[in-house]
């Protein structure tokens, strides 16, 4: 968590506006990384807290990759509150607080995913003015459309599990969803970047 916040702080000068504030880095970077995750997915929490800071430090900060976040909202048992979390994150992105809300959601994932107290988790990451805006945005159909579009984009990219990183380099997409060995992932990215 702290590492991710630190990496983001380092990145602040080059934070790009991106799609609804859900991106980090330079859009002109040689590689685009589209990360598809779900807030109730355990592996996504691990990726967000342990691996993402390394990806940002190794590839986004040096300008090698442009990272874009997508909600790949899961359904079924254990994921009953996924959609609400995705909606709050998408709404928070509209007020420039996407990363903060992501951090909050992943930090206490096991709690709200069971209790359904998503707003109680999200609200402390927002100011009172932002809280009102986000609550209003939850009734905005375009926010729901954003969440659905993310899912559709993932399906179109053949994402079939979370978290999956879709790396696009010179028009060719490579999907990665194995996170047990960062060295293997890094060698893949380095190989793709060297081409």
């Amino acid at each position, binding site marked *: 968590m702290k590492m991710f916040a630190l990496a983001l702080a380092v990145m602040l000068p080059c934070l790009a506006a991106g799609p609804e504030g859900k991106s980090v880095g330079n859009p002109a970077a040689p590689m685009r990384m589209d990360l598809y995750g779900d807030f109730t997915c355990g592996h996504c929490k691990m990726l967000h807290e342990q691996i993402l800071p390394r990806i940002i430090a190794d590839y986004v900060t040096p300008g090698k990759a442009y990272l874009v976040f997508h909600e790949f909202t899961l359904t079924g048992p254990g994921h009953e509150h996924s959609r609400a979390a995705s909606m709050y994150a998408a709404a928070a992105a509209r007020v420039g607080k996407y990363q903060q809300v992501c951090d909050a959601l992943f930090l206490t994932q096991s709690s709200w995913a069971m209790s359904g107290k998503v707003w109680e988790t999200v609200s402390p990451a927002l100011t009172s003015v932002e809280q009102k805006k986000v609550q209003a945005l939850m009734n905005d159909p375009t926010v729901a459309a954003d969440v659905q579009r993310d899912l559709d984009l993932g399906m179109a990219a*053949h994402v*079939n*599990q979370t978290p999956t990183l879709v790396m696009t380099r010179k028009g060719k997409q*490579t*999907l*990665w*969803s*194995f996170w*047990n*060995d960062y060295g*293997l*992932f890094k*060698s*893949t990215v380095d*190989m*793709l970047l060297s081409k």
Partner: protein
Amino acid sequence: MVSSKNRILQIAVVFLRVALGGIFIYAGYVKLVEPWQLFAAGIADYEVVPMWAAKLLAHTLPWFEVLVGLLLIAGRWLRTCTVSTSLLLLVFVGLMVRAFAGGKEINCGCFGPNELISWKTLVRDGAMLAVSLFLTAIAFRHRRKPA
């Protein structure tokens, strides 16, 4: 009548051999054109071999698949070839069944990345195993016959 049946069997065997060979060449090719790390990750997902072995297999197995595929089509070293494909498919199907039964949602790794193990992949690879076992039996039966 008997020779007609033999002729049909011969044609069927050649057809199945070429089809299975083609599938093996394709399976090897799609892995070779992607970064080898993707296949290594796919193997590691099964959690049966250590990472060093997954990396070694990712480097070698696709080439072996292409080789046995070519030999199957060429009709050379058929006993060795068919035994190899049968053993490979036995291992593949066994691992897939184990993962599927264990509720693992992982990619099968059969024809490149991004294909989750499902009933469809199990039936497909099971059918390939049946064909391979049939070709193995034929290869050994022909071997036993006097010239």
